[in-house]
């Protein structure tokens, strides 16, 4: 990875997303709903504002999100948006 890219990523990790974001607890609470919206092709961020910013800022929650999305996708047939 180039030094520029490393610097950019370091700055991103130090400064975070900047805008309003969910907490880790709220993220976990909403994660299943958020993933189902995404898998169904709906606008998940509009349904759950602040989730995307949190996933940018918290690498642990972002990894949990990626895992859940991949697992749901791998077991899903034709998902529908949650309520």
């Amino acid at each position, binding site marked *: 990875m180039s030094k520029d890219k490393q*610097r950019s990523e370091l700055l991103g990790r130090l400064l975070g997303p900047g805008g309003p974001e969910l907490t880790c607890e709220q993220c976990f609470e909403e994660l299943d709903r958020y993933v189902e919206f995404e898998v169904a092709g709906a606008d998940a961020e509009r349904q759950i504002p602040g989730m995307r910013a949190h996933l940018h800022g918290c*690498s642990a929650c972002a990894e949990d999100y990626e895992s859940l999305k991949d697992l749901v996708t791998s077991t899903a047939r034709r998902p529908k948006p949650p309520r």
Partner: protein
Amino acid sequence: MVGVTIPQMDAPSAPQSRSGLDEESQAWLDALRSDGNEREEATARLYELLLRASRFEVSRRKGAMPHLRGDDFDDLAHQAASDALMAILDKLDDFRGDSRFTTWAYKFALLEAAVKLRRRAWQGRELPVEPERWSRMADLGSSPSAGTEQRELLEQLQESIQAELSPHQREVLLAVAVNGVPIDVMAERLNSTRGALYKTVHDARKKLRAGLERAGFELEGREEVGTK
């Protein structure tokens, strides 16, 4: 454990029960709230579902942990599934039906497995001490390839980290953001939680952003760090 077939998500036309849940989710709840054999069988099916999710997480991460054996990974997957099962049975009344029951259950197993794997990967490793925490930032800031703006920004950030953050905020932010210590590992070492430490990181970032803006830097979004 009994052999089971993991339920799959239904088609879009899946009927809803009277409570508003899809039928599959309602069936899970009814079975887990029943008595006797029905509850035992449902619990066993749920355990198998959680074990599959835990193994899914293990399989994603085990390449980064060559020092562990196959048995270690499977033991860890079982521990994660067991802990997730306990958490789910304890929180069953919290399930609102906003997603399918299986999706809701999966997240507990994935979390348990991921946290255990992160902690296992750092078992026996010391957290970075103060000079190590700074060396990466200094290295990137002083690199000849660093543009003037980025160099100034990194210099200002180092000053702000020293001057404006509390010792706890500095310790957590540098470990997590600079040295790549998983926040779950930090939480274990500091007898804290992911949520509490992320709040520390969030507050520290807020202070740093405010300090940079006072110093004349324009900050937009997460990585789009502008110029003076």
